[in-house]
Each structure stands twice: as structure tokens, then as C-alpha cells.
């Protein structure tokens, strides 16, 4: 758990970067820090592993004030990933990834097992990449190694500063998916900086929206999208926030909210799986692939048909209905 308690940061020259931040990152959750450039995301992140000093207030890591901990020891227990991967060009992939375990004095067998496990996790062949150097890898592969390196000594906490920010959209989306998959398996406590609201909505258990070093709203993605607390949040999440929020619901959420009759009318109506997001469902309908879609669960059972009307009703019920 990471707790920020009335944290402030003033840089030299009286630059106020962080203003009275109170915030808790619960165990096993991924919290996304988001906000416009220069709002203090990186600063807040770097105060946790003490790459920046804390001007006032305190940051507790599992209940202990970080300033009372040994910096070096503490950092080795926190995974750190940055945008420009920060891989050491003079070391092989294996040396890069096993740097912290090596500093911690792990034995050879343990390091090898860990390397193989992590490479599996990020979907790269351990034997093929072991002896290669960072510059022999693509940007996406380098960033995967950066993430795996942060996971190497199995730290309970991870700090990630726009880890996928430098990648092109397709690779970025793929790495986001992969990382979500990994997080489901490893359940780390993660503070993750992003400047992309779509990424935040997709990845975060919760989202912190910062502006000029102050927390504007700290909520689940659905709350942020559906109920922006003020005009700034509303503007930041964008006028298509309702559409964005649809990606947070699946077809299953929809058919659970209504009682629908199974549809057996026509055999050539297209089906849609219950795990599909509503945003995809909308585009399917709008693209006129069909004016109705038969909902199918993972066992192949028919749960009735999905129409534009139904989606609209759901929107009113779930999202707009709660407003005001």
C-alpha cells in the first residue's frame, strides 16, 4: 500500500509542483496518475522511491515513512519503469533483467529460473534473447524487457512513468493488454503515470486526475467518465466520455440489467459474445453489420438480442440516470 499524506513539493526557484496531495494506492491495485503535461505526475511518482525529496507531508510504504527507510534497499523492493526503457546498452538482455537479483545476491539457478519465467510472462523466447543486446531489439521488445526487469526481484510495488508512451499505437495497445494479463497474475501495487485517458480507462482500477499539482478527482474509471466532479475533469476526459465509458461495460452487464427473451427468430442474425465491450457492440451496429445482434454466453446459450434501443436504455439507466 502507498499512502500520500498531505504531500507537497516545491522545486528550487519556488516552483510548486505538488500541492497537498492525499491519496492511497491499495494493495494489489493499479492506480493511474493522469493529467496535462507539467501537472506533477512524474514528480509525485519519483517522490515515492525518493528520486525526489519530499518538501512536506509524508509518503508511507506499507505503513512506513519512506524517508526513514534505507534508500537503496527500498528502491530494490520497488519496480521502476520509465518511458525510454533505460536499458543498459553495455549489458545483455539477461544481465539487464537480472541486475537487481544480482545485487541482491541470488544464486545462479534462481536467477536463471526467474529469467526464464519472466521471459515467458512477456512472451519472448528466453534462449533466443538471453545473449542479445538492447539495441538488437525492437522498441516494443525493449519496453517489455524494461517491464520484466522491474519485476525481476518480485517487488510488491511498481512505479511506472508512461511506460508505453513512446510506442506506436498498435504496439502500445498490445503491450497494454499484455501488461493487464500480467497484472492479473502478479497482483502488484502499481502507481502508473499516463497522459492518455483511453489508456487510463483501460488499465486503471482507479484514476487520479491531477492539475497543477492538485488532485482534481480520484475515482474508478467509470465514475470519472460518468460523473466528472468539475468542469476541468469533464473537459479532460473529453466530450466523448459517454462513448468511452461504454468500453467499461460488457454485453453481459447489459443483459444482466434487463430481462430479455431469447431470440430464435432467424438463423442468419449475427451473434455477439457476452464478454465483448459495449463500445464494440455499438460500432458493430453503427457499421450496419446488423441492426440486431444475438447475445451468446461462453457456453453458447442464447440470451436475446441487442439493439440500438436497448443500448440507449442501458445508457440512461446506468450512466445518465445516475447523474444529478
Amino acid at each position, binding site marked *: 500500500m502507498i499512502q500520500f499524506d498531505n504531500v507537497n513539493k516545491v522545486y528550487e526557484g519556488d516552483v510548486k509542483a505538488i500541492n497537498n496531495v492525499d491519496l492511497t494506492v491499495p494493495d494489489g491495485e493499479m492506480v493511474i496518475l493522469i493529467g496535462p503535461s507539467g501537472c506533477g505526475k512524474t514528480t509525485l511518482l519519483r517522490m515515492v522511491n525518493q528520486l525526489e525529496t519530499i518538501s512536506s507531508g509524508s509518503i508511507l510504504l506499507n505503513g512506513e515513512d519512506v524517508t526513514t527507510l534505507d534508500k537503496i534497499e527500498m528502491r530494490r523492493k520497488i519496480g521502476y519503469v520509465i518511458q*525510454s526503457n533505460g536499458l543498459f*546498452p553495455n549489458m545483455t538482455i539477461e544481465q539487464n533483467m537480472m541486475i537487481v537479483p544480482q545485487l541482491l545476491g541470488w544464486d545462479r539457478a534462481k536467477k536463471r529460473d526467474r529469467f526464464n519465467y519472466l521471459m515467458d510472462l512477456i512472451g519472448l523466447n528466453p534462449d533466443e534473447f538471453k545473449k542479445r*543486446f538492447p539495441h538488437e531489439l525492437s522498441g516494443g521488445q525493449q519496453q517489455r524487457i524494461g517491464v520484466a526487469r522491474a519485476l525481476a526481484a518480485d517487488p510488491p510495488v511498481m512505479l511506472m512513468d508512461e511506460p508505453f508512451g513512446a510506442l506506436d499505437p498498435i504496439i502500445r495497445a498490445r503491450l497494454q493488454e499484455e501488461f493487464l494479463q500480467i497484472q492479473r497474475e502478479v497482483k502488484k501495487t502499481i502507481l502508473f503515470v499516463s497522459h492518455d485517458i483511453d489508456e487510463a480507462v483501460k488499465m486503471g482500477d482507479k484514476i487520479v486526475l491531477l492539475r497543477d499539482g492538485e488532485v482534481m478527482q480520484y475515482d474508478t474509471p467509470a465514475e470519472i467518465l460518468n460523473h466528472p466532479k468539475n468542469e476541468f475533469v469533464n473537459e479532460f476526459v473529453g466530450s466523448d466520455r459517454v462513448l468511452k465509458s461504454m468500453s467499461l461495460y460488457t454485453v453481459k452487464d447489459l443483459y444482466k440489467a434487463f430481462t430479455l427473451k431469447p431470440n430464435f427468430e432467424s438463423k442468419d442474425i449475427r451473434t455477439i459474445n457476452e464478454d465483448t465491450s459495449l463500445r464494440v457492440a455499438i460500432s458493430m451496429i453503427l457499421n450496419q453489420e446488423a441492426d440486431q445482434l444475438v447475445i451468446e454466453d461462453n457456453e453458447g446459450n442464447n440470451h436475446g438480442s441487442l439493439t440500438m434501443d436497448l443500448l440507449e436504455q442501458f445508457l440512461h439507466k446506468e450512466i445518465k440516470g445516475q447523474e444529478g
Partner: protein
Amino acid sequence: MDTFNKRTALVVKILLWTAIAAFFIWGFSQGMFRQIYEQPGLFLELLGEHVLIIFASGFAAVLIAVPLGIFVTRPAFRRTEWFIVTVANLGQTIPSLAVLALAMGVLGIGVEAAILALFVYSLLPILQNTIAGLDSVDENTKDAARGMGLTNLQILWKVELPNAVVSIIAGIRTALVINIGTAALAYLVGAGGLGVWIFTGIRLFDNSYLISGAVPVTLLAIAVDLLFRYLERVLTPKGLILAREANEA
């Protein structure tokens, strides 16, 4: 066009080697190298003096310049860096003969003055290259290292120095090659070396002394240059060669 270019290059190469071969044949036929084989003892003595001056000063310069370069690039002393770099740049515009003469002004005639001059003169390129090499490590990479819990010493040892080694060796090479030439002037401050024969040749208008002194000094400089270029190549970590290629592409 391409074959024409290749052929031109080949012709130029052949002409060059022919000229070099012609020079040596001419030199030998005129007995211009005769001092070397007529007084081999003296030749070896002068060569020994020459090498001693170069390596004593070069070695001392490495011992001082590399740690100094490390020192000024530490965050706490960063503010001294521009000053050191400026002095190193400026110092290298001062001709070596002037430095040698100034050292003689301090220590008088003798080997010590030559070693002092060459030492001071070698400091500059080694220092300059050490600083450039250490500075070439990406800030983000160092930041990542710090964030992962490497101590400053570990960052220096595992990341910065491996990245700077090539540049440091290039600095040592530059220093040694310049020193070999300056050591040939050491005769002027009474420090011996192969310069003795070169200056004897100039004074007596005796070409055999000139060639017997100048050609070995030239070969020594070229050999040291090639040796250190080879060292640079084999000591560069493979990952860094790839990194450089990636940056150039």
C-alpha cells in the same frame, strides 16, 4: 561509375605504396639508415629514453586524469566541469614546444622537465575524453539505474565506466601519439631520445642521422596509434557497438 571509382581508389593505393617502397629503397641504397645498424647500442639507448619519457608521463597522466574526470562528472562537483573542460580545450591550443619550453623554465634542463611537459600535455586529451565518455551515458539510463536501487558507485562501475572506456582509450591514444612527437623535441631540454639524432642531422646536414632518427619515431607513432585503435575495437562492449550503429542509422 562504381567500378570506375573502385579502380581510381585502387590506382591511388598502388601509387601510395609504391611511393613508400621507393622511399625506403632509396633510403637504404643511400645508406640513410646506417646509423641504426652501425651503432645499434646507441640506437637502443635513445629509443629506450624516448619510450621511457612517453610512458612515464602517459602513465602518470592516466592515473591523474581519469579519476579527475570521474570526480568532476559527479553531481556534487558538476559545477566545476565547465571550468575543467574549458581549461582542457584551451590548454590544447598551446603548442607542445611552448609547453616543453615552459617546463624547462620550471625544472631546468633534464629528463624531469620533458616528463613534466608531456605529463601536463597528456592530461588534457585524457581528461577531455574521460569527461565526454562519462557524459555520453543517457540521463534516463542513469535515472533508471538509480530508481532500481543501484548505489552511485555501482552506477559508475557497471554503467558509466563500461560506456566511457572506449572514449578514455581514444584519449590515451591521442595523448601518446602527441607525446611521441613532443618527446622527439626533448633533446632541446637535454632529455635525450631519438630527437638527438634528428637534431644532430639538422646541425651537421647529415641525412643518415636525420633518417635514422626520424623514421623510427614515425613508425613508433604509427604503431602506437594502430595498437590503441585495435584496443578500442576489442574493448568496446558489443552492446555499445550496436548502440552506436543504431544511433548513426
